[in-house]
């Protein structure tokens, strides 16, 4: 059980504070904030989500820029408390429509009423918005959401397409629309966060999809909902290692490593026809979470080339190739690359005709940032770095990328249909099924500049070995670059005697 619950702003102000058991001293919020803020002396590095100070255990999660925290003196289940904190944040968001400092302060009576029903004497009673509706009487006062920064992956639909109502995501589950009657609608979002690590030679080292099917229902009368997924969906059975992925690529068989479901989901027919049946509770909830490590086609490929271009100069070439249909649009693409600490400045050169790109060299953390409004088939950037020392190339990279692609999902998991089983056919509610793919950890490692692919002894190669080595590398996606290298390398080869061979490898 927990002793206290509180919400702090980023500056450490108490927004909400509720003590359930009176066994932890009242300065706990301040002790907590100081500890989190200065976890390491230099102020860098996040505090772990669970820690103990003077016998008091502190838990916290960050939601929408706020710190949701709890304390206890008992040996409780930490995942229980952390999950609870996330859930409280979600309930409050369901009620208030928007979760931020302002909305919390404006609705403090409601928030305290909610907290009293959610937790009694430190024990969780319920976190279901649906159940809470029958015990909570304050009406939410909805703050103007239009000026709020977007929250959550589905937020991209807000400004976006005409088909979607603008307020959908920030609408309170319980508050009535200004017009009086509530609009009947239901949202099903398939959100996939993908992680890919490309090796320095462009192969995929690891890839993973963390997916979730989220539902937010504004339907009255709690009708039953049926969600049908791909019929050939298979789950687990260790199929992944034996799997011949070339077949899974094209045929569209989706294999989940593992999945779990919300407690309202009935799985009676799931094994037969991959249909989920449920009576959705009010509020936002995850119908299903799934995880895929089966090979998939990454939406972007990244190639990087770093080379010395002079005594105190280096060149970085980053190429990003979009590998999804041009009908799909990717938003807010940002490519980042840490540069060596002794980089003084960087200049950028984009392909001619490129529009809407931003380039920046972040002086403070020595980082190259390249923002793309829209992905094209192939975008590339050349950056010239000016450095203080020579020996530069080892501390650059890896290149990482963040993006959001709407109406596209990497796994090919699909909601085949969304059925509302309604007893009375008054009107047809709006049904929205949306797909969003986001980058989680999307990283390309750099070319092995200091010969990591080659063992040290081979660095003493003679000319023929070098040719062999280069030919060997031709197979990789750095093909273009290496050909280029060989053409200039011709020079290097001729002058091979004069140039130290290691210089060619960047040593």
């Amino acid at each position: 059980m927990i002793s206290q619950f509180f919400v702090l702003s980023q500056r450490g102000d108490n927004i909400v504070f509720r003590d359930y058991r009176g066994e932890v001293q009242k300065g706990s919020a301040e002790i907590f904030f100081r500890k989190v803020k200065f976890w390491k002396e230099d102020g860098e590095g996040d505090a772990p989500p669970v820690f103990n100070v003077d016998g008091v255990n502190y838990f916290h999660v960050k939601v929408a820029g706020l710190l949701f925290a709890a304390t206890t003196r008992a040996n409780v289940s930490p995942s229980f408390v952390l999950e609870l904190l996330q859930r409280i944040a979600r309930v409050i968001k369901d009620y208030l429509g928007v979760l931020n400092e302002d909305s919390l302060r404006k609705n403090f009576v409601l928030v305290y009423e909610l907290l009293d029903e959610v937790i009694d004497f430190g024990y969780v009673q319920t976190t279901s918005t649906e159940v809470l509706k029958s015990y909570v009487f304050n009406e939410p006062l909805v703050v103007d959401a239009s000026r709020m920064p977007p929250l959550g992956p589905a937020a991209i639909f807000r400004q976006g397409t005409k088909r979607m109502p603008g307020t959908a995501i920030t609408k309170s589950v319980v508050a009535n629309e200004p017009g009086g009657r509530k609009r009947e609608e239901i949202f099903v979002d398939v959100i996939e966060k993908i992680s890919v690590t490309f090796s320095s030679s462009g192969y995929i080292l690891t890839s993973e999809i963390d997916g979730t099917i989220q539902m937010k229902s504004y339907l009255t009368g709690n009708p039953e909902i049926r969600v049908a997924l791909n019929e050939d969906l298979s789950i687990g059975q260790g199929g992944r290692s034996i799997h011949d992925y070339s077949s899974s690529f094209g045929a569209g068989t989706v294999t989940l490593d593992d999945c779990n479901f919300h407690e309202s989901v009935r799985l009676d027919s799931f094994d037969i026809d991959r249909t989920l049946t449920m009576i959705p509770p009010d509020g936002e909830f995850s119908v299903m979470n799934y995880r895929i490590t089966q090979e998939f086609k990454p939406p972007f490929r990244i190639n990087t080339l770093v080379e010395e271009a002079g005594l105190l100069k280096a060149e970085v070439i980053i190429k990003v190739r979009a590998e999804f249909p041009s009908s799909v649009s990717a938003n807010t693409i940002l490519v980042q690359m840490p540069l060596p600490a002794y980089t003084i400045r960087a200049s950028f050169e984009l392909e001619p005709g490129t529009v809407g790109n931003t380039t920046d060299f972040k002086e403070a953390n020595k980082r190259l940032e390249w923002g793309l409004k829209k992905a094209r088939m192939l975008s590339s950037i050349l950056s010239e770095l000016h450095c203080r020392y020579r020996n530069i190339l080892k501390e650059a990279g890896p290149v990482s990328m963040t993006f959001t692609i709407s109406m596209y999902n990497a796994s090919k998991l699909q909601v085949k249909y969304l059925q509302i089983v309604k007893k009375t056919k008054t009107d047809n509610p709006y049904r929205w099924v949306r797909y969003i793919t986001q980058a989680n950890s999307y990283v390309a490692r750099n070319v092995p500049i200091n010969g990591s692919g080659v063992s040290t002894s081979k660095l003493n190669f003679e000319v023929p070995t070098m040719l062999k080595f280069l030919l060997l590398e031709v197979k990789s996606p750095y093909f273009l670059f290496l050909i280029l290298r060989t053409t200039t390398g011709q020079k290097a080869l001729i002058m091979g005697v004069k140039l130290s061979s290691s210089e060619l490898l960047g040593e």
Partner: protein
Amino acid sequence: MSGHDSKYFSTTKKGEIPELKEELNSQYKDKRKDAVKKVIAAMTVGKDVSSLFTDVVNCMQTENLELKKLVYLYLINYAKSQPDLAILAVNTFVKDSQDPNPLIRALAVRTMGCIRVDKITEYLCDPLQRCLKDDDPYVRKTAAICVAKLYDINAELVEDRGFLESLKDLISDNNPMVVANAVAALAEIQENSNRPIFEITSHTLSKLLTALNECTEWGQVFILDALSRYKAADAREAENIVERVTPRLQHANCAVVLSAVKMILQQMELITSTDVVRNLCKKMAPPLVTLLSAEPEIQYVALRNINLIVQRRPTILAHEIKVFFCKYNDPIYVKMEKLEIMIKLASDRNIDQVLLEFKEYATEVDVDFVRKAVRAIGRCAIKLDRAAERCISVLLELIKIKVNYVVQEAIIVIKDIFRRYPNTYESIIATLCESLDTLDEPEAKASMIWIIGEYAERIDNADELLESFLESFPEEPAQVQLQLLTATVKLFLKKPTEGPQQMIQVVLNNATVETDNPDLRDRAYIYWRLLSTDPESAKDVVLAEKPVISDDSNQLDPSLLDELLANIATLSSVYHKPPEAFVTRVKTTNQRTEDDEYAEGSEAGYSESSAPVADGAASPSSSSGSVPYAGARQPGPAPTQPAPAAPVPDLLGDLIGLDNSAIVPTDQPATPAGPPLPVLLPESTGQGLQISAQLTRRDDQIFYSLLFENNSQVALDGFMIQFNKNTFGVAAAGPLQVPQLQPGTSARTLLPMVIFQNMSQGPPSSLLQVAVKNNQQPVWYFNDKILLHVFFTEEGRMERASFLETWRSLPDSNEVSKDFPGAVISTVEATLDLLTASNMFFIARRKHANQDVFYFSAKLPQGTPFLIELTTVVGNPGVKCAIKTPNPDMAPIFFESIDTLLRA
């Protein structure tokens, strides 16, 4: 004004309370509700609105639930401070507990349980009894928790009124929510009771397992955690339980999954069939991995648990190592945990992949993470002998990057690799030696020196390399000094040539004479004796074959691991500490402070946080016994003492403990009134405390005569004193005995002293640095001057002959002289008496022209003699003093001393 709650915060002008009072008594419902909201708003920002108690309670009788809840909120907050008025609410509570609306019934019981006022508690029992048997499940589940609340206030009452039995009945309730709360309440009561109250029989087990399927996710965790205490009778029962619990692994709530994993792991211990166990392991793997797709906070908890699980059952995740590869955007605390698990799961099969990852991590930005990655490579080398070579080549590549901290970390792990695989990889030593100059961290330096010493015979210039470190020997940290000592001895034994021989002389001299580190000194003496008695056996000892090490750097003690595994899915498994080590939950019945439960303004709350309630109760053992100066403290109840104004450095306590071992006198000399002592800490500096002190000699013993004058406003006690290292090693021989000093009083004391205790190096100095502290003030530091004559002993008396002989035997360079133009010897006799009192003994007197020359002898306790010659014209100012001593460095101090004496 907009229709926001925040408007309730805005009326802060004067006369607010009367205004609110009026509104609370308004005849309009809406106005009253608004007023209560304003009151609550004031309460949450820490304003005192307790004076409105009666008026708010008057609003309690309403059918409007929203208003009623607000009033109850107020009551929980202020009932404790207004116990007499709280009784006003009792009637309404009792009435509400019989209201037709179940929400009101539950609300009444819930609120009464939160009010810790005896009068309310008395009236709680009957409604609670009824509510436990209520028709409505919402009321029953609220009542179940209320029993736990009541038990916390008054355990006896709960037992007397039979509430425990009613609670146990609720386990069979048909509503899963009620069952879950009853289980939670019983589990808490059991935890705080010594009697068996909540025992899980096979009957309750099956009931709870059935309820499990119907419960909310949170209820499932309550039940699973309670059931984890159940010991199955045999393998079959265990299999049965596991079968019922396994479906929970599919739950979206991570807490449910982890609690189910805990339950399954526990029952697995009983299951004998290897097939079943293998199958279960297979089933647990995907859900455990899925936890790593959750928020980073949950991932962290999952990783700490997985760390324990793979130590017991490595097979579960043996094939899943890829999921533990660090993501670029993982928070650092997740990355660190992933590294640990990668090391645990590394095997010959996956080591290439793992090494590639580690190498990548070793070039990241976060220094701690990079270091850990480098160390991880070393640990893999030690763990997997077939991969050791590959690990080493990766380490060498990293060393070539020449990033300073990477190199140092690599050298540390390579030292361990050498210990694990002796005589295998020494060929790389040359490469390591290239980085010698860049090492600046003690551990890396020590490791490198160890390598040089261990392989001295293979390194041609080992002596040169070591010599380069020797120059800075005195400045090195102890860790490096120890390694240098050992490495030099090894070098000498392996290459007993001239160079090493000279080095060993230097090192042994440094390590015995010039150091005050007892470890270093003792080790040096052992080597010295070994080498001087029998170099052959020295070889046997120093160069003996070392046992091969294994990777145990992160293995937990098996019994601890058992305990932690039993505590999977609790905080214990995150901290990797047994619950006793950090759980400080105590019965707080009597210690509860006045709570305003809705403190929003932190400024009101924080000042009370240092109240010793929690701390005193939390660690009762920490303040007793181990503190050496506990006896010097004034007796008195610790919690009532005012908190010290500033934290007291540990230094004082520790060092005094050391001095206590050398207690010389046992009888405390009476405190005499002597000549005024020089003021060393004026009251302006000492916040009203003035300290005067001087070293004196009485009855052939040295004392520190002190006068404490308390001109501050508070009583001072708990005085302690500490002397810094000084030339003569002057230190206290016992604790300082000063009684509590009331404001305006003073105390004199004689502190017995010893010398040669804690001597400082460097040129002799008369400086004596003193620190004095007490319980109320910060530590005071002041300087005193050591007057050499207090050390002169009775043995200083010499015969004329021996005086002359000593004088002649000392070279002229040992003679130092100084003029004291201001000093006067007015009468010869008085001066002789004065000097004799200071153990400077008169030898002879001769006339030289119009001057008188006096000769005296004196001796320091170590035996250093001082031969003194004073030249003056009696009665006239100007004295010339010349001394001859084997230790002319002391002359300046002596002159200071004689100057003081002659002026006195």
